[in-house]
């Protein structure tokens, strides 16, 4: 019978990504309810050394698939190896990260195993022996509780939502056969973003600007505030469509769905499509000169004033607070 919780760890350039620890800690919590084991799949080239780190967050056993063909990530190769490990070990639950890679991989693996998948979950629990996944639908306008009537039950977890609590276990390595066929896809180039900023989906703090920023130059004050708070700058679609900010900065129903600890919306009216992308943030601040702007209905703290005056002052205040 299918048993235990398995995670599919995510590494890039030889370092585990934060979501991997969130997965491990969540899996540990689920498995402890039934006294089951947590295992992990770790794929790449020369990645065995990372297994111990997974152990720190509650993983008992790590299946390491080592093969140069698995580096960098290619969907079909990773899916073939991951699906084989899952089949051979028959876990009841498999957790992926709802990162770009995790989403790409989880759907392919679920299809290979002819099972169901709940994407981008914000909560998972065991109820009556089954995994119950809570996930936003309609971009957070409502939530669905999803159950999966097949084995394994697969879910992907939204980054930044599940705590990565330490809970040391063995993290013992089992090497697996990671041979893959010749691939039809080839990575030609990996162009790294050199700004050194964390991606919006992984950021703890987001300082976001909309049409109220008046133009691309306006964002300088947001960059400064973000710098002080170690955050990342985001944007509304109006700002992206105006060409003030790149597409990757867009937050909302047709942009990124984010859930930072702190979201500061500056000069953003709070259109329903924007709210959809950020309303799961833990603390929301709105700075807008229009007291009637809908963004204030979602904000924990609202400042009704000119952002060009408030933001620089706030930056100065924060500098002192974090010093």
């Amino acid at each position, binding site marked *: 019978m299918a048993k235990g919780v398995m995670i599919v760890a995510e590494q890039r350039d030889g370092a585990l990504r934060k979501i991997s620890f969130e997965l491990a800690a969540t899996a540990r919590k689920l498995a402890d309810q039934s006294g089951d084991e947590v295992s992990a799949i770790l794929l790449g080239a020369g990645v065995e050394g990372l297994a111990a780190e997974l152990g720190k967050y509650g993983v008992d056993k790590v299946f390491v698939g080592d093969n140069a063909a698995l580096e960098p990530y290619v969907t079909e190769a990773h899916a073939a190896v991951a699906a084989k490990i899952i089949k051979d070990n028959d876990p009841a639950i498999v957790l992926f990260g709802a990162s770009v890679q995790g989403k790409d991989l989880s759907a392919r693996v679920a299809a290979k195993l002819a099972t169901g998948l709940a994407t981008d979950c914000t909560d998972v629990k065991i109820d009556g022996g089954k995994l119950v996944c809570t*996930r*936003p639908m309609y971009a957070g306008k409502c939530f669905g509780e999803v159950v999966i009537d097949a084995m394994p039950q697969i879910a992907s977890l939204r980054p930044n939502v599940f705590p990565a609590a330490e809970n040391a276990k063995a993290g013992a390595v089992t090497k697996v056969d990671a041979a893959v066929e010749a691939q*039809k896809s080839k990575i030609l180039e990996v162009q790294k973003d050199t700004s050194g900023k964390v991606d919006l989906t992984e950021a703890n703090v987001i300082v976001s600007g909309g049409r109220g920023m008046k133009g691309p130059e306006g964002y300088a004050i947001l960059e400064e505030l973000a710098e002080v708070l170690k955050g990342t700058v985001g944007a509304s679609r109006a700002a992206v469509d105006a060409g003030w900010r790149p597409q990757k900065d*867009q937050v909302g129903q047709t942009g990124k769905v984010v859930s930072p600890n*702190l979201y500061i919306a500056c000069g953003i009216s709070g259109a329903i499509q924007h709210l959809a992308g950020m309303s799961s943030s833990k603390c929301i601040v709105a700075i807008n000169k229009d007291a009637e702007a809908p963004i204030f209905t979602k904000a924990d703290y609202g400042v009704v*004033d000119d952002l060009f005056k408030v933001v620089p002052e706030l930056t100065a205040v924060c500098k002192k607070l974090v010093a």
Partner: protein
Amino acid sequence: MNIIACVKQVPDTEAQIKVKADGSGIEEGQIKWVMNPYDEFGVEEALKLKEKNGGDVTIVSVGPARAMETIRTALAMGADKGVHICDPAFDNADAYVIANALAAVIKTLPHDIIFCGQRAIDDDAGQVGAMLAEALGLPQLTLVTKLEFAGASVKVIRPIEGAQLSIETALPCIVTAQKGLNEPRYASLPGIMKAKKKPVDVKNAAALGIPTDAKAKVAKTIPPPARPPGKIVCGDDPAQKAAELGRLLREEAKAI
């Protein structure tokens, strides 16, 4: 080139979503239905490829009778023909069932490249493209923001967290469209007139011969958790407000 674009009809992004009192789904009464915005990018890219390289574009959609409007919209944009998979058996389908239904149809059609949206903005699953790729045994390129056709292959750009990948894949393959890929055209009036005469083949589940039992089921739909009402930060001038906000974020919200 034989190009396929999968389109889904979804509630307009402006739609207020109301959960049914018994949690069995959402109230559909007031909703305006549109083509999934990401599918517009897929259809546009399909049309651009056709215009440059010749060939034809087939639209495939699974959905109730009203989904025909969305197929017609794509035909009005310039696609050549459609397949409408319409059967109440799909009412509780999940991505796995939908992908297999799409695959059953696409297997019978010549195809060099297949477009999906990167996700449907209603269920937000983002699964169908990859599951369809698996069902057809083809490579998948998800979240594509740029595409170049090079005869027997395509080169694409796909953004990942903190980087951009440039990938080359042999055709046939599946591409899921992300915002940034192109600017979708509007249907012209003559386009709308012409679309009325373009062929759309309607198929039911029996004709596809695939199982329709969902693996993933939405047991309950619930409204989003209510946020406690917020505070308007007081102060006589911007400096005072900023100072008070800083204090609240530090001491009350513990967010900095």
